[in-house]
């Protein structure tokens, strides 16, 4: 790559290829439309038992005693486990925020999370589990477990949790420990914020809040465990079989090779499943105790409260602006509600999309007695982008600028210090403005339509990492010229299995129909980085390219195999971008219609422009953006998990309560990809899956401001909040 800014701006033009870039139906489409795709609960093993988990009804309580004798005496019950019988440490669920693949960080943490904990720290935390001959007996047995709880004071709000006298959830207090076991916020300063604010002609301050959003994948979590001697096989819906195996092995006290993880199909990822979950451990322990396979099924409510969702935030922002609209300094003081365990980072993203060099960020990941927060598709981003881009949009109006012009003035751009593998953010914004017809849809005076039905427009833009890194692939060819690709992917929805086959077919120069894929089983597949962080295409896909190149070399040297012989190639590349930022870019433009009498908001146009490098399979790529954008709309307008302040009980667990989008709420999302090849990843392909969700809340909130003339500073933007703003 040339290091000139011009080359960074352009990337390389994409040239047509044989298989890559053409619409290809998924190689498993038939299984998916005929009911043949086997999800975890569809697996049946001889003699298997059914398991259920007893969960805490209290937000914070110490278990004085637990009596399982009546449950154990219930005919049909085969095993009962509690914190007294099994004190297993559960994975990174303790305090390994952002360090989930770092064994050293896990080993040193002082906030250990156990499979069953005492005290319990949120409603829905596992207390005991039962395996029985059927679900009915298992559920009956839960009713017979007698737990004597000593209820403890609890706290639900992250800011209240940091006040003096707040009920301590951990002995050290409620500010989460960092990886050095210190209760410190995550702080990052760049440039000279004080000088930047001093140079500003105006300084604006505001406060934004975002709500908890459950990942809410359609398949409720389950785990089916079967022991064979000292080896355990666990069927579980995971996004990363390799990491899931390593986590479970560590927690069960086994070596990796003693654990086999199988995940053929899984009903939606959306984040934080690239590893183990406690129900894997519970199923394994119950199966060991009972001596037969055990299927642990989470109910929808178990899943809703007992897993994780996007952390809710409070964000106090401060922005300095010069007379000409140049942002001179940005300050963020953020509070992320993490629940009682720091499962993930609690980060708040978005400021990095601006060129402003003077930034001060202090983020407090805070423990509360709400359910655990974790990664959901672009974990730190939609909530952060909502706040900073609402703030910037607001400032644009206050300095009398068109928000698009203000954006173009302040977006991050390549400089001698900030180098990209390629850059297209300004192009995404300008293309979006044109496709959306911004001039005709945007109201220069917000709220100026006569009503009661008003319209207006808003936009938001983003830059999101698209890393490169290590992953593995194996490819084999036999005398019949069947190419078999072994990759440790699980295909959580985006179509990774098909993408890997497309890459192999392209590199090998053979039709897709000659490629078979072996996936989803740690006993059969090499290491894979896992389908999180939108990394499968870029990392495992690049490994497929390298393995295929090696296989071609072998074929050239030795000829095609004959008889029963095969040729096999493997690769574990670990590429680097040599200090350049590899990012995807995008801009979303939204027109809304608001009924100012009812508070109802309807999306009337949604344009999404993305640059994700070369697009390998256009239709699924487009659907990744469309689906993600709609999830972003859900976060913008609907989704929340409300708690009763007096009891600490969650009130809106489940699809109806969270008001997930239905067909009737789903507008057409118009997707445009700007394609380019930056020379990295497989054929210049970059991240797609997470990028589409980032901008919905910000763009919708900005469009609502333009429509009604009131700035909505809290997510979700419900009817009640709109009517309150208009009152």
């Amino acid at each position: 790559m040339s290091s000139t800014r011009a080359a960074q701006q352009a990337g390389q033009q994409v040239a047509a290829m044989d298989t890559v870039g053409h619409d290809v139906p998924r190689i498993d489409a038939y299984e998916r439309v005929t009911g043949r795709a086997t999800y975890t609960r569809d697996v049946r093993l001889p003699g298997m038992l059914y398991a259920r988990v007893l969960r805490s009804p209290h937000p914070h309580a110490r278990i004085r005693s637990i009596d399982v004798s009546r449950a154990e005496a219930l005919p049909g019950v085969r095993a009962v486990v509690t914190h007294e019988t099994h004190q297993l440490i559960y994975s990174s669920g303790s305090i390994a925020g952002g360090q989930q693949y770092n064994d050293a960080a896990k080993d040193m943490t002082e906030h250990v999370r156990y499979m069953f904990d005492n005290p319990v720290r949120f409603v829905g935390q596992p207390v005991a589990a039962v395996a029985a001959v059927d679900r009915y007996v298992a559920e009956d047995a839960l009713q017979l477990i007698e737990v004597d709880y000593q209820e403890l004071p609890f706290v639900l709000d992250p800011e209240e949790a940091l006040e003096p006298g707040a009920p301590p959830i951990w002995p050290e207090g409620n500010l989460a420990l960092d990886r050095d076991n210190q209760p410190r916020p995550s702080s990052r300063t760049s440039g000279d914020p004080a000088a930047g604010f001093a140079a500003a002609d105006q300084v604006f301050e505001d406060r934004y809040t975002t709500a908890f959003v459950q990942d809410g994948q359609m398949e409720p979590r389950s785990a089916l465990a079967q022991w064979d001697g000292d080896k355990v096989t666990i069927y579980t819906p995971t996004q990363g079989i390799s990491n899931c195996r390593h986590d479970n092995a560590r927690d069960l006290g086994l070596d990796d090779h003693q654990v086999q993880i199988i995940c053929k199909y899984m009903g939606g990822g959306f984040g934080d499943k690239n590893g183990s979950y406690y129900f894997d451990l519970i199923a394994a322990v119950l199966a060991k105790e009972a001596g037969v396979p055990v299927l642990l099924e989470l109910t929808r409510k178990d899943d809703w409260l007992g897993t994780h969702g996007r952390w809710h935030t409070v964000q106090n922002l401060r922005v300095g602006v010069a007379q000409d609209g140049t942002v001179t300094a940005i300050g963020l003081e953020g509070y992320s509600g993490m629940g009682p365990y720091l499962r993930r980072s609690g980060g708040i993203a978005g400021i990095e999309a601006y060129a402003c060099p003077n930034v001060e960020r202090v983020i407090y990941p805070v423990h509360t007695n709400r359910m655990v927060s974790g990664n959901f598709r672009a974990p730190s981003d939609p909530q952060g982008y909502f706040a900073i881009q609402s703030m910037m949009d607001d400032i644009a109006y206050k300095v009398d600028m068109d928000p698009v012009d203000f954006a173009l003035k302040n977006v991050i751009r390549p400089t001698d210090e900030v180098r990209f593998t390629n850059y297209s953010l300004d192009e995404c914004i300008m293309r979006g403005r044109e496709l959306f017809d911004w001039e005709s849809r945007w109201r220069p005076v917000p709220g100026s339509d006569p009503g009661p039905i008003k319209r207006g427009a808003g936009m938001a833009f983003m830059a999101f990492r698209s890393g490169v890194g290590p992953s593995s692939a194996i490819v084999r060819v036999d005398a019949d010229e069947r190419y078999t690709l072994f990759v440790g992917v699980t295909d959580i929805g985006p179509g990774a299995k098909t993408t890997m086959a497309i890459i192999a077919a392209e590199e090998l120069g053979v039709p897709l129909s000659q490629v078979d894929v072996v996936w989803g089983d740690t006993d059969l597949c090499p290491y894979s980085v896992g389908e999180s962080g939108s990394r499968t295409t870029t990392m495992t896909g690049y490994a497929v390219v390298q393995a295929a190149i090696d296989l071609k070399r072998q074929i050239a040297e030795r000829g095609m195999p004959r008889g029963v012989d095969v040729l096999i190639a493997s690769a574990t590349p670990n590429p680097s971008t040599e200090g350049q930022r590899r990012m995807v870019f995008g801009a979303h433009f939204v027109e809304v219609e608001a009924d100012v009498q009812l508070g109802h908001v309807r999306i009337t146009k949604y344009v999404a422009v993305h640059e994700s490098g070369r697009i390998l399979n256009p239709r699924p790529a487009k659907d990744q953006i469309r689906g993600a954008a709609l999830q972003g709309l859900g976060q913008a307008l609907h989704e929340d998990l409300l708690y009763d302040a007096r009891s600490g009980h969650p009130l809106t667990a489940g699809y109806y309560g969270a008001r997930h989008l239905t067909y009737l709420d789903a507008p057409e999302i118009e997707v445009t990809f700007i394609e380019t090849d930056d020379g990295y990843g497989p054929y210049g392909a970059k991240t797609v899956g997470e990028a589409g969700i980032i901008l919905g809340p910000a763009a919708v909130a900005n469009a609502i401001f333009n429509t009604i003339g009131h700035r909505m500073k809290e997510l979700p933007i419900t009817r009640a909040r709109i009517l309150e703003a208009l009152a």
Partner: protein
Amino acid sequence: MGKKRTDLKDGVSRRAFPIPRSEDTLYEDEGGDRDLTRRGFLGGAGAALVVAGAPKLGSSEHSSAGAVEQEAPAVPQTAIRITVNGTEHQVNVEDRWTLNEFLRDHIGLTGSKIGCNRGECGACTVLVDGEPMFSCSTLAVWADGRDIQTVEGLESDGTVSPLQQAFMDYNAPQCGFCTSGQLMTATALLVDNPRPTSDEVRSAMVGNLCRCSNYNAIVEAVLAAAGTPGSGGAP
């Protein structure tokens, strides 16, 4: 439990259960004793299994092997005649079984899914006499005399239906977990209304959630199968 399940599968492979005599039950272990209690039955079966393999129960002093049999009310059963994907089954079902449990757990049709088990998501949708129903919220006994169609019954002579083909061509499944339910609702729609507008598709399918939020693509697939124009998004 495993043995029972194997027997059931054999039953399915015979395409129809024999007409139940009074002593015939789905669980052969019960030996036709209609007065046998559920608890008693489970306790008996359990003791056998515990002897066979189950070791200790954690640190507890109790184990089910030594448990005193408890009296519990019998699980009522009802003989039903039900046609599933063209195959008639005459079986005794427990009254508490949902239609979904019957399909997934007892005759091995795992295509319909449980997403919520409380009528919120539609992943369990099957057709009952041609009408889309949430099988999680329908008791098996209510299906007596009914004709059930599941996703496994959409193919004919090894060929997928035009709707299934459109779902494949238009990438309608992302994770695929809701797909069976979506297909069943859309199948019923196209019977009632072979050329729906996109509004009519959305309205008919509002009870089927897709958390991948692939709604645009699913509507496009249904419209393509119907041969009607329209966009995938709500106006």
